[in-house]
């Protein structure tokens, strides 16, 4: 297939993730939708790497995977800490950063 088809799939997955981040209230599902957006960016990077014929885009995709893994660890740690303090797990209620 042409590279443009892969970019179209990437754009569609990215927009679906953006709609999910805006709509959902659970921070777990918002982290999942952020994963969708990062994976869509990875697909675009791999498509451009195939278009140019060198491996720079694949290196960028691996670095994006590292950043996504760090984001998942910190985000889920925050969710567990919020749950332990018996606070409501709702993104509209999480607007203060006091201990």
């Amino acid at each position, binding site marked *: 297939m042409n590279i443009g088809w892969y970019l179209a*799939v990437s754009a569609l*997955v*990215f927009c*679906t993730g953006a709609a999910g981040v*805006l709509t959902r*209230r659970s921070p777990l599902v918002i982290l999942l939708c952020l*994963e969708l957006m990062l994976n869509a960016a990875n697909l675009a990077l791999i498509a451009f790497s195939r278009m140019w014929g060198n491996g720079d885009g694949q290196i960028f995709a691996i670095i994006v995977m590292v950043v996504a893994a760090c984001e998942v660890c910190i985000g*889920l740690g925050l*969710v567990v800490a919020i749950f332990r303090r018996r606070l409501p797990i709702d993104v509209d209620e999480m607007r203060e950063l006091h201990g």
Partner: protein
Amino acid sequence: MSAVLFFIAGIGAVAGAIGVATVRNPFYAVLALVSHLLCLAALFLLLRAEFVAAAQVVVYAGAVMVLYVFVVAYVGGAADPVRPAGGPGLRAASIVFAALLFAELLIAIIGSGLKAIDTKGAAYQPGFGTPNQIGELLLTRFLFPFETASFLLLIAAVGAVVLARRRGGLDPDHDELMRTIPVKRPLGTGTTREGVGDVNPTPGMGSLPIAVGAGDESQERGR
């Protein structure tokens, strides 16, 4: 043949993405994301990125999704929002925003000056996408991002442990609860001396010849 595989994997990836964004249960949303990641790995294979496809399956669908499943199993019962989502207005606004973003991205793709988007990419070289090429690139041209990514992973691991650790006891409420209960009991309650009979002797137990020493004491007490 690659067109059929592309449409199967692409439709699977988009269906998984829509499932993640719309399914109510967080556990089923995680499963939808796993299926989306597997279809995305198939798309990576179609783009001749073998190492990144394997890393996608091992790192994402293996490790990160297992972490998600554990946190959903731990927090999942309370993760349902107390009140429903932000109402039909917010949902319609988010769908309109996503549609406008998709239209903008399609205009950017179609109207870009990159003529190679309409082709199948550059001519395939035998070493493209192999671990050999990626390892060489990581240690020569991209050495600094590679080392920075290592430090970032270390900082994230330490931060996650600090965030999720317990702070004394099982629960702060339990410590407060145990501290307020006034427990009063006679001295020696629950010890071995109580079992022998030296503390709080049970009436009638003294006359039984349980042991030689106990017998002597009971005889003395009988006098």
